[in-house]
């Protein structure tokens, strides 16, 4: 069996486990969905307040900023449904000492831990994101252009990849630090800056959020693409940047595992 076929099969088995697990805890869905929605709505209050006081902020109008918030909401949904559950499980493994079992398996550890848990029912915010985008375009009285939409779709893949790589980097830190419930907290806190167009930040911070922790890539660029404002070079660089970032994350993961196996007892 080729490697691709083999990992595709593994993927299907893992998804099956997740679904079975989800069916066990049906009651939690509703509660999670409600809390999620509440957070999203509460998070809109600053946006509304700010644009209640001003027409534009950092060159963005309310409708345009709403697009950015929509992308943020969508990525949050992907984070909650596809990325968080699995990678939180890694942290648990490290704490309980059962990561050894993962490392003993004849399959790539990063793949195994990343696909261990999916909770798609957490992704109610996908709908919220669609609602925000709809409201924005209705208020602007137009539709996104076709090339813009295609670019946005491509950037969705790019953004998800960057988000995943960021998470791998965060979890790799778990190998070095003993008690890291707060790592998810740290990640979410920094990610929260992606709620706003990157132009809100100035100087060094804007540079960091564009090139080091590429939040701009995840929410601002896709919004600009939808508005037809993203240049082709920027799009190309985003794709290349995401690829480089994924490669970097993989290297850090591998070296963290190597360190874990050589330093621990």
């Amino acid at each position, binding site marked *: 069996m080729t490697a691709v076929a083999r990992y595709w099969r593994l993927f299907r088995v893992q998804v099956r486990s997740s679904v079975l697990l989800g069916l066990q805890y049906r009651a939690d869905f509703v*509660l*999670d969905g409600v*809390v999620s929605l*509440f*957070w999203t709505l*509460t*998070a809109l*209050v*600053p946006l509304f*307040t*700010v644009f*209640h*006081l*001003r027409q534009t*902020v*950092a060159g963005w109008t309310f409708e345009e900023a709403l697009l950015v918030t929509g992308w943020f909401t969508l990525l949050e949904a992907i984070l909650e449904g596809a990325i968080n559950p699995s990678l939180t499980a890694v942290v648990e493994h490290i704490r309980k000492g059962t990561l050894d079992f993962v490392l003993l398996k004849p399959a790539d550890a990063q793949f195994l831990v990343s696909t261990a848990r999916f909770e798609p029912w957490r992704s109610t915010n996908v709908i919220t994101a669609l609602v925000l985008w709809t409201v924005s375009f209705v208020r602007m009285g137009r539709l996104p252009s076709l090339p813009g939409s295609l670019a946005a779709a491509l950037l969705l893949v790019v953004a998800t990849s960057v988000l995943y790589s960021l998470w791998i980097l965060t979890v790799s830190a778990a190998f*070095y*630090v*003993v*008690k*890291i*419930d*707060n*790592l998810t*907290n*740290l990640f*979410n*806190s*920094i990610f*929260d*800056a992606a709620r*706003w167009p990157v*132009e*809100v*930040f*100035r100087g060094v*911070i804007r540079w960091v959020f564009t090139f080091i922790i590429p939040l701009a890539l995840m929410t601002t660029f896709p919004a600009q693409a939808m508005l037809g404002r993203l240049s082709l070079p920027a799009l190309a660089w985003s794709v290349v940047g995401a690829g480089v970032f994924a490669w970097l994350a993989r290297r850090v993961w591998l070296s963290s595992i190597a360190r874990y196996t050589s330093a621990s007892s």
Partner: protein
Amino acid sequence: MSLRSTVRALPTLFRVGFAEMVAYRAEMLVWVLATTMPLIMLALWSAVAHDAPVGAFDQQDFVAYFLATFVVRQLTGAWVAWQLSFEVRTGTLAMRLLRPVHPMVSYAVENLAAIPLRLVVALPVAIIALVLTGGSRLPRDPLLWVIFFLSLIGGWLITFLANAAIGTLALWTGSSVKLMDVWLAMFMVFSGYLIPVELFPPLIRGAVEVLPFRYQIGFPVELLTRGLDRGAALRLLLGQWIWVGLFLFGVRALWRKGLQRFAAYGG
């Protein structure tokens, strides 16, 4: 579990709590670094005030306000809701109950023991804030400084007691983390943490005056940076400590009920 024995145990409890915090210094650092909200908001509101002041805030005002928010957040944080949820879920609450100290006291000490370390980060930020904005906004009236320190204690108490109340609910529901998330969301919006209370439209302003959130962090920050007069300060102080009293009473009642249930079900 007498008061005297508790008081005598306090120094040791604090020492051990502090040593624990030092042992987990990396986590402490992460926790402090994770307080990015005030800084993100600072960037946002500075951008809003770029061309002209917003209400009574110009860019300098926002710098002072949000850096003060960062510092006050470090000094008034508590996480006992998560502790309680965890201990109820894993059954380790029983061990805490066996100790000859009231669990709430031991939680309080653990949460307080983090403050010295957080001060290590908070102090430089406070100094930076002073340097950037000058000391002109700080209160001159010594009474206001007394009120400020009282407001810090009150703010911590409300945060801790709210955490404790929600955490105690875990004795019924198994885990109250989600409820704490709801509280946190409301806290962030209505306390002055994300949006200075002054800038709210009148409708929301009314609600904010009545809810406890503003007294957790907005009140101390406003004392430091918004030039409140004695009358307003005292009025708000009273309001804050009424909430402290309400929460204290509520937590005691909840805890007693909760323990009964815990004992009945074997934990």
